[in-house]
C-alpha cells in the first residue's frame, strides 16, 4: 500500500470543503488526507454530520454550487479538483461507481430497471442495445437477483429495499469501475438484509479486484470488511490506519470511545454511536482546538486551544491527531498483530 504510485488509486491531499454562507465561509471538511491502494477496501467511519458524505461528494465532484472543494484529489494520477467537467463526467461511472444510502429514492421510479443499468455502459463504453442488455442481465444475476430477465424489464417499485439496493449495485458496476463507493449503503435497509448486502459488496470487491470505500456510522460494518480505516470527527480525520490495528489499539480518544460503544465487533451490532455522551459540534461553532475536546474524558487545556497535528506510528501507516493519545500497547503486541494481519 505504501509502495510505488502505481499501487495508489485514490490520493487525497489536504481536501477541504467550504460552504459559502451569508456570514462568511464555513469549513465543513478540513485537511483530509489519505491514500487508497488498488484492490483495497477502506472504511470511513464517523457519527452523522461528521462530513463523510461531504467527503464522498467532494471526491465525486458532486458538491452543490455553494460549496468549494480545495486540495488535491488524485484519481489514478488525475486531479479531480482541477479537472474540466467533461473529463470528470467521463470518469464518473466509468472508473468510480457509487451506491447511495436509500435505494427507495436512488432508483428512478419511472424508468425501467434495465435502462437504469444500461445507461452507464451505453454512455461510457458505447455498447449496443443487445450487448448492454446482456451485460445488465449478467450483472443482475451476479448481484443475486433471482430472475434477472424479468427484473430487467420491470419498474423498480416492484422490488423490496434489499432487492433495490442490489439493482443499485448492479448499476454502479455496469462499467466495471476500479473503485466502488458505498455511502451508508445498508443504513436504510431492514436489519436482516443489511448483512447480505455487505457480504455481497465484500464478495464483489474481491471477485472484481476493485477498490472499495465503505462509508458508515457503524463500526461493526467495516470491522471484517475493510483493510484500512479512516475515522472522521467534526470534519477532520482524527485517526487512520490498517483496520485491524486501529481496532486492536486505537490511539485517538474518539476512536477509543467509538470502539467501546460497539458491543461486538465481528458481527453487525446495529449500535448507534450516540452512546458517547454529548453531541458532535455543529460546523458553525467548532472549537479552535481538537473537535472532540468537549466530550473527551482526557482533554487538557491545550486540547481546547490548538488543533493537534497528525502523529504517525513507527512504520507511518497508523496516524492519529491527539495530544493525549491512548497509550500504545507494548511494541511486541503491535508487531504480533501486524504479522497476523499481513
Amino acid at each position, binding site marked *: 500500500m505504501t509502495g510505488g504510485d502505481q499501487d495508489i488509486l485514490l490520493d487525497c491531499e489536504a481536501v477541504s470543503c467550504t460552504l459559502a454562507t451569508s456570514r462568511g465561509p464555513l469549513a465543513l471538511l478540513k485537511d483530509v488526507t489519505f491514500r487508497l491502494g488498488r484492490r483495497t477496501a477502506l472504511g470511513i467511519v464517523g457519527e452523522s454530520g461528521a462530513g463523510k458524505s461531504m467527503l464522498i461528494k467532494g471526491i*465525486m465532484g*458532486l458538491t452543490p454550487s455553494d460549496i468549494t472543494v480545495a486540495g488535491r484529489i488524485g484519481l489514478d494520477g488525475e486531479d479531480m479538483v482541477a479537472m474540466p467537467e467533461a473529463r*470528470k*463526467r*467521463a*470518469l*464518473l*461511472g*466509468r472508473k*468510480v*461507481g*457509487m451506491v*447511495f*444510502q*436509500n435505494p427507495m*429514492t*436512488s*432508483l*428512478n*421510479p*419511472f*424508468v425501467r430497471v434495465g435502462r437504469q443499468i444500461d*445507461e*452507464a455502459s451505453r*454512455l*461510457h463504453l458505447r455498447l449496443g442495445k443487445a450487448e448492454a442488455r446482456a451485460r445488465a442481465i449478467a450483472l443482475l444475476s451476479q448481484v443475486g*437477483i*433471482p*430472475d434477472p430477465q*424479468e427484473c430487467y424489464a*420491470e*419498474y423498480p*417499485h*416492484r*422490488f*423490496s429495499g*434489499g*432487492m433495490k439496493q442490489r439493482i*443499485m449495485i448492479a*448499476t454502479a458496476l455496469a462499467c466495471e469501475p476500479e473503485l466502488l463507493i458505498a455511502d451508508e449503503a445498508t443504513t436504510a435497509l*431492514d*436489519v*436482516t*438484509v443489511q448483512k447480505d448486502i455487505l457480504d455481497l459488496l465484500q464478495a464483489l470487491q474481491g471477485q472484481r479486484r476493485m477498490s472499495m470505500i465503505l462509508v458508515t456510522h457503524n463500526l461493526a460494518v467495516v470491522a471484517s470488511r475493510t483493510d484500512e480505516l479512516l475515522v472522521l470527527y467534526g470534519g477532520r480525520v482524527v485517526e487512520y490506519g490498517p483496520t485491524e490495528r486501529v481496532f486492536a489499539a486505537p490511539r485517538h480518544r474518539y476512536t477509543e470511545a467509538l470502539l467501546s460503544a460497539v458491543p461486538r465487533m465481528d458481527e453487525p451490532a446495529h449500535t448507534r454511536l450516540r452512546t458517547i455522551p454529548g453531541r458532535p459540534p455543529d460546523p458553525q461553532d467548532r472549537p479552535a482546538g481538537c473537535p472532540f475536546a468537549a466530550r473527551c474524558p482526557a482533554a487538557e487545556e491545550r486540547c481546547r486551544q490548538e488543533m493537534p497535528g497528525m502523529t504517525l506510528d513507527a512504520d507511518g501507516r497508523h496516524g492519529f491527531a491527539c495530544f493525549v493519545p491512548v497509550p500504545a500497547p507494548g511494541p511486541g503486541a503491535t508487531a504480533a498483530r501486524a504479522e497476523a494481519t499481513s
Partner: protein
Amino acid sequence: MTARSQDIKAQDLEAASALPAPATARLRWPRLKGFEWFAFGFVALLIAAAVLVDVIPGLARPNFPYGDFSQPPEWSLNGLLGTDPLGRSILSRVLHGARTTLGIVAVATAIALAIGMTAGMLAGFYRGPVERAVDLYANTMASLPPILVILALIAVVGNSVLTMMLALGILDIGVYARIAKGGVIAQNDRDYVLAARAMGASDARILAREILPNLVPALTAIVPPLVAGLIITEGSLSFLGYGIPPPAPSWGGMIASSTDLLSRFPLLVVGPILAIVLTVYSLNTIGDSLARRLNDRNRNL
C-alpha cells in the same frame, strides 16, 4: 425469540415482494365510470370522424347545397342534424368543422408543449434568470384575456389558419412551462438525479432521461382540459368573425351565421353547439380521469 420470528417474517416479505405481481397490474385501466366511457368514446369517434370525414360514404361536401334550406333533422345521414339556410348538411359541416378545429388545436398544443416544456424544464433546472423570464411570460399571458391576445396578433399579421395555430399555441406555452418547471424543481434534489450525475450523466441527459419521464404523466393529464380551453377560444373567435374565414366550416362560425335566424329556425344552432359542449365536456372528463389515475399510481409507488 421475537427477534427470530421477525427475521423470518422480514425475509418472507423480501422474497414475496420480489416476486413479480400479476403481469398487467401497472398498466391496467382503472375501472371507468359510465360517463368516462362516454367521454373517451366520444373523443375517439370525433377524432376518427375528423380524420376520415372525406371518405365517409354518402356524406355530402360541406359547401354542397344538398337539400332544402333550413330543414329539421330527419333520419338520413346528411339530414341527421338538419340543413342550414343554404341547404347544406349540418352534420357534414359539423364534422368538417371538427377536422379544422381539431387540426388547428392539435398543432397549437404541439407547439405549446414543445416550447413550454423545454422552457419550463430549463427554468426549473437552472433557475436564476431563465426562471424569471419564464415566470414573467407565464404571468403576463395568464393575466391577459386570451381573445385580446389573439385579436392583437391577428391585427398585426393577418388572419390565416397558420396565425390561428400560432396564436392559440402562444396562449398555452406559459401554462405548460409552469407545470414542467414545478415538476423539475420537485425532482432536482432527488437521489436518482444525484445518482445519474455520479454515473457521469450530463445536464441534457439528466433532463431527458431522468427528469422527463417523471413529467409525462402530469403533463398528459393537463393536456385534455387545455385543449378544451383552446376549442372554446377558437369557437369564440370564429363566432366573432376572426376565426377561420368562411365558407370553410367552423363550429363558432356556424353558430354565428345562424343567430340571425335563431327565432325562426332554432334547430340550426343545435348541431355546432352540441359539438362544442360535448367535446369540451369529454375532454375535461378525460383530464379528470387521467389525473385520478395519476394520483392512484403515485400513492402506490
